[in-house]
């Protein structure tokens, strides 16, 4: 469970997040809102990559900070940029992160297959189309089956078939106690399997609903 208490993030004169109080239960929460509503900022704070101006985010009572190695082992994050090394192949990228997370090579093959990346496994990440980069980023973020999965626009630049693959990976990832936040403009896709939704506007939560897990599409 993730608890967000009085979270505020200010960049200069711009208030990105304002007095956000949330409790995110295990399951997938879709994060929706227009451009500049604070979706990406919220995900960066929850990943521990951005120190909030005020307030805090807690994972099972412990602060969510990237400086904490145990927390880093539990989080998977794919931001706006794919976070891949352009001159390594897709397989080499995943193998590198598998080594860093202490994951066996079998997971790399699973991740490649799950996102339809096998034909592109030997392609340099920098030579991939935007859609394939996005798929590879999701593969990288979910490679170590993290307890907290944070995906920022995972459906960007994806065709319908690829979007289905991403949804399938997220649905397979779900498990006891795991929390995912999926920020997207494509609310319809995420609502099909999400157990909760959060709508942000101007850095404030204008709606936060949690469905019982049984209500969520399995």
């Amino acid at each position: 469970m993730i608890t967000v208490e009085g979270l505020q993030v200010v960049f200069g004169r711009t208030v990105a997040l304002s007095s956000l109080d949330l409790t995110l239960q295990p399951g997938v929460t879709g994060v929706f809102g227009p451009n500049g509503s604070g979706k990406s900022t919220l995900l960066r704070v929850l990943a521990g990559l951005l120190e909030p101006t005020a307030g805090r985010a807690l994972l099972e009572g412990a602060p969510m900070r990237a400086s904490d190695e145990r927390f880093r082992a539990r989080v998977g994050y794919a931001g706006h940029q794919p976070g891949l090394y352009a001159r390594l192949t897709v397989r080499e990228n995943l193998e590198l992160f598998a080594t860093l997370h202490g994951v066996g090579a079998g997971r790399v093959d699973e991740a490649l297959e799950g996102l339809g990346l096998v034909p592109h496994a030997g392609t340099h990440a920098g030579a991939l189309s935007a859609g394939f980069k996005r798929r590879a980023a999701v593969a990288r973020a979910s490679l170590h089956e993290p307890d907290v999965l944070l995906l920022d626009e995972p459906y960007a630049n994806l065709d319908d078939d690829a979007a289905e693959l991403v949804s399938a990976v997220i649905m397979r990832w779900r498990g006891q106690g795991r929390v995912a936040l999926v920020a997207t403009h494509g609310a319809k896709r995420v609502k099909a399997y999400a157990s909760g939704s959060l709508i942000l506007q101007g850095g404030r939560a204008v709606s936060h609903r949690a469905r019982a897990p049984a209500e969520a599409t399995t």
Partner: protein
Amino acid sequence: MTAGLGTAGQRRAKGAGRRDRRGDPSRGWLAKTAALARKDLIVEARGRDTLPPMMAFALTVTVLLAFTLPDGARVDAQVGSSAGSAPIADVLAGFLWVTVLFAGLIGFARTFEVERDEGAIDVLLLAPLDRSGIYLAKAVANSVFILGVQAVLLPAFAVLFSVRLGLGLVGVVILADVGLVAIGTLFASLAAQTRSRELLLPLLAFPALVPVFIAAVELTSDLFSGSRLDTVASRGWFGILIAFDIVFSVIGALAFEYVVE
């Protein structure tokens, strides 16, 4: 096969299988560090963005310096004016280390460039690896680059200035490189977070590098002028170099975490 393991064996096998899927991030600091260093070297081998500019700079400067010395100058000669003179060995040692220093800065400035592409810095910082591992991996890659430059630069000095290259000089080079890389990598990580990193890096690194630079020049000058290694060692500069290497390496590994946060 699993049945033969018994209940405890099955539990262990099941646990191992789970680790294979979910990972055991606390293990393998060295393997993770080696994987990161290997990544940087592969990226450089494919892109050749760092080493060729460093080498080109070092060789160009060396050739230009060759034109500034008197014709037929030898390492035991003196250069200077009526106000004073210096053995040419001192001048060449200074040339060598100034060239290495500036070539090194070209490489250090690019330390985190590979992470800037495609936003890989965020995911690198989220890897469950002690920050000292990232620092060491970057330092190893920088060491390979600077040694690569010296592998070309030292023979060029031997050809252009008739200096003798021996094992003593190799020892000085390796010891000096440890200090240069330890400081260069640390300040590169600091400068990488700013827009004016190419300007900031020398401003930060030069003052800290002065002790290593002076020790390296003194030792190299003695060796260029033909002093025996035991005579050179007795002057104490080796001790100073080793002491600064240890201090800078420890400070770099400890401070890196706070610099990247």
